[in-house]
């Protein structure tokens, strides 16, 4: 009995640890199934020929997220042809961020001409599993056998204010590296973003 309790507590601890810390580079990402703006459920298996994914936690209302909408469309157009499509996920609780409701996701995606799925993390479980803290927050996954391995975490580039003044396109560099068969350098970067709106955080 004691042994069962200790095994259970170790398991519980592992689950809690996995949830609280999120992914590091090298970790395997778990498959998710979330509702897209067309009402359909999307998961990795919808992209049978993908070599990986650009999973980006983003939203409607955050000015930093807005500043990167066009750049994400460009990334998606270019890199889905090379096997790395963008999957955008809105992690915010619309009760705390009214601009981030499902209906507004639908209208923003239409208005901005999103070329990628824009999913709602209704239960706010996926963003916690990944360890995302802000919008936008990017995770690049690479398919290895049946696994999806996290190879890059962080920012899209180094100038949110002006796309023409970017000196390091971190995300594109990471994708180019993976496509060329090497590892992203740097594999993690940071940027200012809007904190994810979650009642449990208060």
């Amino acid at each position: 009995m004691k042994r069962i309790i200790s095994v259970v507590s170790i398991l519980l601890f592992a689950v809690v640890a996995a949830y609280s810390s999120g992914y590091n580079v090298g970790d395997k990402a778990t498959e998710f199934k979330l509702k897209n703006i067309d009402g359909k459920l999307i998961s990795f298996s919808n992209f049978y020929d993908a070599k990986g994914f650009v999973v980006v936690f983003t939203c409607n209302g955050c000015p930093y997220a807005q500043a990167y909408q066009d750049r994400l469309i460009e990334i998606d157009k270019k890199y889905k042809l090379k096997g790395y499509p963008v999957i955008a996920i809105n992690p915010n609780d619309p009760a705390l961020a009214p601009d981030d409701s499902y209906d507004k996701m639908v209208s923003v995606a239409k208005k901005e001409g999103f070329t990628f799925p824009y999913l709602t993390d209704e239960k706010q479980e996926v963003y916690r599993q990944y360890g995302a803290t802000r919008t936008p927050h990017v995770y690049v996954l690479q398919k290895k056998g049946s696994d999806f391995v996290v190879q890059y975490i962080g920012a899209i580039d180094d100038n949110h204010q002006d796309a023409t003044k970017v000196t390091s396109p971190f995300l594109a560099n990471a994708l180019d590296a993976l496509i060329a068969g090497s590892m992203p350098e740097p594999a993690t970067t940071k940027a200012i973003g809007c904190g994810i709106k979650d009642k449990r955080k208060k």
Partner: protein
Amino acid sequence: MKRLILILISFLFVSQTLSSKVPDTKRIRVLNYDQLEPYLNFRNDTVYLVNFWATWCAPCIAELPAIKAVEEKYSDKKFKVLLVSLDMLGHLKSRLTPFVLSHKITSDVFLLDDPNQNRWIDKVDKSWSGEIPFTLIYGKDFRDSYTQQFDFKTLDSIINRKIKMP
């Protein structure tokens, strides 16, 4: 006559105090990270609260009254508040200045204009991933960071404890 002088002096004193409470928008200084860095690393007897925020950040705005109340409560103590705005430079006059005026913010306000955030976020705090609101509370012998949205009670108990530290 004596009384008149006294009244006059007290009037002057009061108006002086009042005018110093009116926020002077010219003191919203625009800094890059290297210019801001000294403000994050003072080594003296004062407890510093450095809050990273923006006018468009709803949880940031929601916690400003708590910060202001704590600042007022400890105004006679060695405690100082610095508000570091991450508003875009183009919004200095159209948004940040009017906000600071209308909310009667009397703390020092900086606009941090340094887009290469990946270079400086770790320098502010290694554990910070870049989300706002973000608050650094530091003194000579400690340095704590918070990504939560503060209410008065929580912030008050932290500052109260830090100020009393030997």
